[in-house]
């Protein structure tokens, strides 16, 4: 008789979720990822609401990636009404989004993931022994927050990104200040890569069938926006066809619907971006990629953490480049008028933890239809499979060890459980 191994409330993730592993004499019988958050009905509550008001609340799906939600919803809305932002405005939206990437990756890696590897139950306990690491985490997090403060009005739930552009742009002096501080944290981002390169990456969890999905970067700029989705099996599809290739299904053993691509679970996130688009990296990130290519394993979800570290370097460098371009074009008009024509638009972008889908229909200036699929909703199926692989390997070990390894597997995905549950169709 085996007692099920349960983690009621997975710590150090965003949102409330649990893990249940049932074993018998033969091995692992059942693995479940349980979602224990309350519903928020984001799609349903915004239907019939004014577009600008709905756009103000979409970021509230999730705080860790509020800029991602805001900017993806904005792009879907602007596509729906037939508006295209000027290139310099798009660059500044990229910069705001990058602020989110840097903050989210820094928080996840140092505060949520690192304690496991170093044997702590929380990041605050690491302060005495790992002073430098905590300082770097804070500095990286702070520059991400500041970028969002300046471009988006604040680090959580940005109100300054609006239809047509921005309410107000930072001053030239603020851009220069951002650039100076980004340059200061670049070595810290590089240190993060070195640090995570040294950690044990749990190579034992190998998934030969792993399929990765990421956007095909627009204008060949590695990162966030794209009009096509690239799959690691070589297939590509336009974002408008998302429903054909990101298929949500009810599975017997889970309360949340799982996402499948050609009947198989797939992964999204930093490692998926690297697997599909590493050839577009440049600068220091490219050098580090070449140096550590072997650690960026496509078949191991733990490589996601290492990919995030590499992306920290890339996004810091990319942010500096955007600021240089912006200052070269200065002054920049902050906003264009947008006429609210009726229409339908789909935007899929790369949120810090992977693909984020917004499909919006606008009618008479109001939201008439809304569909949101978040990265964690897409990753749930493969996350569960990898917890199972981990459990199959360690089911006879000390239950506490298995619990930790199962939690670490989930944390490797940087899941946003609030995101996934509030929008996934159960």
């Amino acid at each position, binding site marked *: 008789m085996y007692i099920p191994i349960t983690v009621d409330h997975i710590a150090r993730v965003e949102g409330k979720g649990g893990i249940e592993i049932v074993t018998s004499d033969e091995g692992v019988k059942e693995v479940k990822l349980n979602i224990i958050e309350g*519903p928020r009905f984001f799609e349903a509550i915004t239907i019939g609401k*004014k577009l600008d008001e709905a756009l103000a609340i979409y970021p509230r799906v999730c705080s860790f990636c509020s800029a991602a939600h805001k900017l993806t919803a904005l792009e879907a809305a602007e596509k729906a009404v037939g508006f295209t932002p000027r290139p310099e405005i798009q660059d500044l939206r990229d910069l705001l989004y990058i602020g989110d990437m840097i903050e989210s990756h820094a928080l996840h890696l140092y505060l949520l993931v690192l304690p496991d590897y170093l044997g702590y*139950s929380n990041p*605050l306990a690491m302060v005495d022994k790992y002073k430098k690491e905590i300082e770097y985490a804070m500095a990286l997090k702070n520059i991400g927050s500041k970028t969002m403060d300046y471009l988006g009005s604040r680090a959580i739930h940005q109100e300054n990104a609006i239809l047509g552009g921005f309410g107000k742009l930072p001053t030239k002096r603020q851009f220069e200040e951002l650039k100076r501080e980004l340059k200061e944290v670049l070595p810290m981002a590089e240190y993060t890569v070195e640090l995570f390169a040294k950690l044990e990456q749990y190579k034992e969890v190998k998934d030969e069938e792993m399929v990765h999905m990421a956007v095909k970067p627009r204008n060949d700029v590695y990162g966030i926006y794209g009009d096509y989705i690239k799959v690691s099996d070589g297939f590509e599809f336009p974002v408008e066809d998302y429903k054909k290739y990101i298929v949500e299904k009810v599975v017997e053993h889970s*309360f949340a619907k799982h996402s499948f691509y050609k009947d198989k679970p797939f992964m999204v996130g930093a490692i998926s971006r690297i697997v599909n688009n590493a050839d577009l990296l440049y600068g220091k990130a490219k050098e580090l990629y070449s140096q550590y290519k072997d650690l960026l394993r496509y078949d191991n979800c733990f490589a996601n953490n290492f990919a995030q570290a590499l992306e920290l370097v890339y996004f810091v460098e990319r942010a500096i480049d955007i600021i240089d371009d912006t200052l070269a074009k200065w002054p920049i008009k902050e906003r264009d008028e947008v006429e609210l024509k009726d229409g339908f638009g789909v935007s899929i972008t790369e949120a810090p933890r992977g693909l984020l889908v917004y499909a919006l229909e606008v009618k008479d200036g109001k939201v008439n239809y809304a569909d949101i699929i978040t990265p964690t909703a897409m990753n749930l199926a493969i996350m569960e499979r990898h917890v199972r692989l981990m459990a199959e390997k360690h089911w006879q070990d000390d239950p506490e060890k298995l619990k930790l390894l199962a939690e670490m597997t989930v944390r490797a995905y940087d899941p946003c459980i609030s995101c996934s549950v509030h929008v996934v169709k159960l």
Partner: protein
Amino acid sequence: MSEKVKIGFYALTSCYGCQLQFAMMDEVLQLLDKANIECWFMVERDSDEDREVDIAFIEGSVSTEEEVELVKKIREKAKIVIAVGSCAIHGGVQSWGKDKGLSELWKKVYGESHVKFEPKMAEPVEKYIKVDYKLYGCPPEKKDFLYALGTFLVGSWPEDIDYPVCVECRIKGNPCILIEKGEPCLGPLTVAGCDARCPGFNVACIGCRGAVGYDVAWFDSLALEFKKKGLTKEEILERMKIFNAHNPKLEEMVNKIFEEGE
């Protein structure tokens, strides 16, 4: 305080933004020699909701029957309960769809499926337990946390904010978005403390800190102003309800304007 103060941070249904704001404060590190974290799942693997605490921070709206039980338990175990953010204080943006009713919302998003928790329409924490102090905002500002925590740590009690965002906007010298640009800014009735953050970016306030308390929120006079600008009653109510859907005065005060005017 000679002994370390025991702190708990609890999440109901939310975006986790209030905790994230708290976790992102560099000042939290300075707090460590003064406080023990008994429960805070976002950062502490060793968290336990059953432990006694001196200060309980609760974020999120009560949106399941399980969360009703949780807030009651927190109240029993905590000396001071602080409702943190728009969800805990006002039911959050998830209450915006309140008029549609739980079953309609459920059907639209989840179809005919059922889950093991018992869903409820989102409600403020205060509906179920006594709340001692509130940190307004979606999310609250860092200084809101620092002020409350600092005050409690020296054994004092923080003042509540009883004036609107407009005051801070005037002090900053921002142009008035309502009067000069004609946009439906909710600054006149929203609790201050954000330093008029959004109007400072030329963006109209959407009221994320909720309406000023003590029954002085002037839904009626602002509704009159909006009405003069051509907004319909429905438009006014929708906007004011984004963060105030549970306010008992709102509808009555807005209705008054439209009845008198007709």
